């Protein structure tokens, strides 16, 4: 179905990896928002969003990244993305997200990035 959505989670040391799968739109954004909120509630603020299974994103999905990232960064953490399929990457880039977020090609690169630059410095 074209509106199925789920979020997988795994912990890699100090970093938590969230893997949204399927369609992230105004209908499913609240579920994704809850998944990020749950990490913050547990005190995790080094978050990688592995987008390899994300087939679709609309501005409601982008809004989840926008709404959280400032607080996360003020707390000394960050939200970084990786493994976007081209169609999804294009939406991020159209709106300039690549200038305000670390968006890596692969998950290891994103993990690596957290080791080298845990905090966003532009």
């Amino acid at each position, binding site marked *: *179905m*074209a*509106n199925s959505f789920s979020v997988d989670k795994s912990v890699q040391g100090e970093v938590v990896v969230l893997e949204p799968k399927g*369609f992230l*739109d*105004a*209908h499913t954004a609240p579920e994704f928002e809850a998944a990020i909120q749950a990490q913050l509630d547990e005190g995790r603020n080094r978050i990688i969003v592995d987008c390899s299974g994300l087939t*679709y994103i*609309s*501005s*409601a999905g*982008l*809004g*989840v990244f*926008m*709404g959280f*990232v*400032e*607080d996360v960064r003020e707390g000394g953490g960050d939200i970084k993305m990786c493994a976007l399929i081209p*169609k999804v990457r294009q*939406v991020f880039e*159209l*709106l*300039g*997200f690549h*200038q*305000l977020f670390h968006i890596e090609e692969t998950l290891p690169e994103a993990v690596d990035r957290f080791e080298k630059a845990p905090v966003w410095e532009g």
Partner: protein
Amino acid sequence: MATVEKRFLLQVPSATRNLALVREFVGTVGQQAGVNEADVSKLQLAVDEACSNVIEHAYGHDDTKEVVIRVSYDAEEIRFDVIDNGSGFDPKGIPQKELDQLIAERKKGGLGLRLIQTLMDEVHYEIGPGRKNQLRMIKRIHSQ
């Protein structure tokens, strides 16, 4: 490719769960119109954004209301009208903030209208609050 105009219409309850159906509809009609795959994705996103706005802003998630999507295409272009009879709004009165500013303000939105403008070739509003508000979006067809 089409020589005469082909017309389609989809009407769904004003609820976000129907966005998937809207995207399938747009995808199928776009493909049939001869739109290339990359542009079909853009049409789906633009119409999703327009319908999401109606569901959220025009009708405030009242799912007894209905969203109407009208499509027509010919050999040159494909036109989408997203129609509601809700509150209406003044498109020119919406401040267009930059992404870094929206982020600084912890905003979870404010990108939809800009995205629509970026994805489509022409965007027109006809606002008649409580009567008929119509967002017309046009895309030239590059069959590939």
